[in-house]
């Protein structure tokens, strides 16, 4: 199969896929993630803007296949190159990622400020300064985009970090931006289509040799994707039924687990919420003192388990902090609940010991039956 020049294997597929010359081999079934991983790493890199000299070199290549271009065709080629992204767009994408986000203070921070005597409480934190690329960083982006095609994305990020403040979000924005850009195969394919359209208007024909050259990369890319997809399908066909890793991605067990077992068990557990709500409405009644105590406890725990509890009791002064929702929850769980549970556990242990002794000493012989059956 045709491999792109800079094809490399790592990522999710690196463990199981191996390349031997012109063939790819996979051990066991291939998961959708591994398929995406192989296709992502296929070496079809997004294009960067073409400088004037590179454009002329490209036109030279075109003219060497089927003769000189007409003026209209030359204009069309230039227009196609003009559709590629410009460095200013990448700078804009990075700057957008550098805009500081809104952040809010927690209720405790606000309360602390209030206790400290702050008269004008602000919910929103002071915004951090936006990270905008400085002149040196813009130059680095320009070089990456136009004058230094050998510079990798990682090298650009390293240069940007060295040249000034640069966040991880901004670094991620570069990859996200480039991922949306066309590859050389896409550009040549678009150009072939445009030249064919032009030929229909002008009555000229596009030489077959030129068309073949323009579509070669697209064909290679499509052929590569097709072969990898075939590999994906082939990896799921086992030579012997039920052979291979039983829980490997794509195997029958994996499929049953992923699409039957997991959704069913998660749904069963989630349905508890619906039945508990219905039961609470119908059966949780304050019929006597014990039930009232249980209700009160339930309300405190339900509220304290969310943001609302602490927020509702945030006005309670520090001297009465025992009445704050979180503190009340802590008391209930670590004092009453722990004492109750320990009493039950000790009771069970004593009961087991007493019953065991009774059986061992022959005091309790009921397990033998009463003899009248």
């Amino acid at each position: 199969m045709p491999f792109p020049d800079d094809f490399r294997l790592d990522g999710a597929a690196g463990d199981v896929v191996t390349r031997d010359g012109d063939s790819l081999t996979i051990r066991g079934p291939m998961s959708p993630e591994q398929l995406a991983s192989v296709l992502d790493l296929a070496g079809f890199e997004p294009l960067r803007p073409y400088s004037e000299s590179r454009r002329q070199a490209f036109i030279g290549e075109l003219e060497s296949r089927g003769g000189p271009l007409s003026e209209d065709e030359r204009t069309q080629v230039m227009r196609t190159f003009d559709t590629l992204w410009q460095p200013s767009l990448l700078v804009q994408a990075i700057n957008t990622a550098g805009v500081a986000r809104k952040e809010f203070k927690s209720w405790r921070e606000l309360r602390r400020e209030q206790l400290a005597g702050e008269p004008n409480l602000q919910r929103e934190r002071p915004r951090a300064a936006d990270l905008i690329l400085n002149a040196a960083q813009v130059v680095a982006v320009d070089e990456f985009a136009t004058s230094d095609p050998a510079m990798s994305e990682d090298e650009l990020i390293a240069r940007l970090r060295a040249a000034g403040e640069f966040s991880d979000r901004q670094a991620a924005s570069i990859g996200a931006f480039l991922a949306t850009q066309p590859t050389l195969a896409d550009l040549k394919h678009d150009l072939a289509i445009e030249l064919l359209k032009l030929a229909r208007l002008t009555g000229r024909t596009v030489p077959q040799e030129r068309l073949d050259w323009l579509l070669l990369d697209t064909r290679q890319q499509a052929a590569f994707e097709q072969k990898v997809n075939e590999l994906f399908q082939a990896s799921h066909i086992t030579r012997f039924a039920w052979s291979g890793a039983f829980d490997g991605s794509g195997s029958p067990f994996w499929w049953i687990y992923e699409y039957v077992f997991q959704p069913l068990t998660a749904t069963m557990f989630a349905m508890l919420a619906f039945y508990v709500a219905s039961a609470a409405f119908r059966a949780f009644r304050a019929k006597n003192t014990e039930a009232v105590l249980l209700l009160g406890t339930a309300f405190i725990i339900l509220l304290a388990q969310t943001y609302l509890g602490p927020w509702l009791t945030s006005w309670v002064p520090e001297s009465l902090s025992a009445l704050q929702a979180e503190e009340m929850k802590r008391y209930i769980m670590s004092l009453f609940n722990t004492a109750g549970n320990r009493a039950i556990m000790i009771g069970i242990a004593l009961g087991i010991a007493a019953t065991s002794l009774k059986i061992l000493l022959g005091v309790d012989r009921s397990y033998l039956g009463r003899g009248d059956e």
Partner: protein
Amino acid sequence: MLTRLANIDRRWIFLLMGIAVAVPILLQLSFPEYPGAQAQAVFDEIEKLRPGDRVLMAWDFDPSTEGELKPMATALARQCAEKRAKLYFITLLPVGPQMIDDTISEVIREDFPDMVYGEDYVNLGFKSGNEGVIKVIITDLRGLYTTDNRGTNIDQIPMCKNVQSVQQMDLIVNVSGSYPGTKEWVQYAVTPYQSKLRLVAGCTGVQAPLLYPYIPNQLQGLLGAIKGASEYETLVVKAYLGVNPDPKYLEARRRMGPQLVAHLLMIALIIAGNVIYFAQRRGSV
């Protein structure tokens, strides 16, 4: 009217609960969290680890409790990996290996690609026998775990070569969804060897009250339900992940929105049920 309300079709309540859970998810409601004492205790206990310390990661949960427990499992794995501890994953539940695989692929492979399988982390997989497994491996790990989950002989795994029993672990981190879980680890592992073993755990909301009696001597810290997870997540994010963490480390906080509205609905339903009950009783007297 009251009779109609008292006998309301329960499907209306189901619908209300569905809306209460769905709306915060769709609106992506999120609230600030402040770490409680237990979350802090778990965080501090893991912070004590030094590079190269052995940590037993007992992932005793399955897809039924994944929604509640996976966020804390992710955050726990992240902090242990940050401490450069050697991680030994095991599970006592048949579908636990999938939970371990998820943690390994989402946390270790994605965020710590330099960690090497067999040297920095190992997946020992599932063994049947519930607390019986704990009882054996606490004195003889190699007797039961002769291979890892992939079938590699344990003698060929560098990080397992000098490990004879669980007593050599510097910390046990347990995420427990049901039986067997934290209670069994406390009873059969930590209690007989209290001077040697330390245990921190995360569990479902239903289990948490049953585990409080073991704090702090047999259980050094406990993350109870999604609330505990979100508090702990806040600590891990603050310490290691900065202002723009990967969304997988904010999952517990994201789930606190639906929990808030669902709890409010529960309270409203209980109050409504009681109002109707007392009004009917007064009417019948």
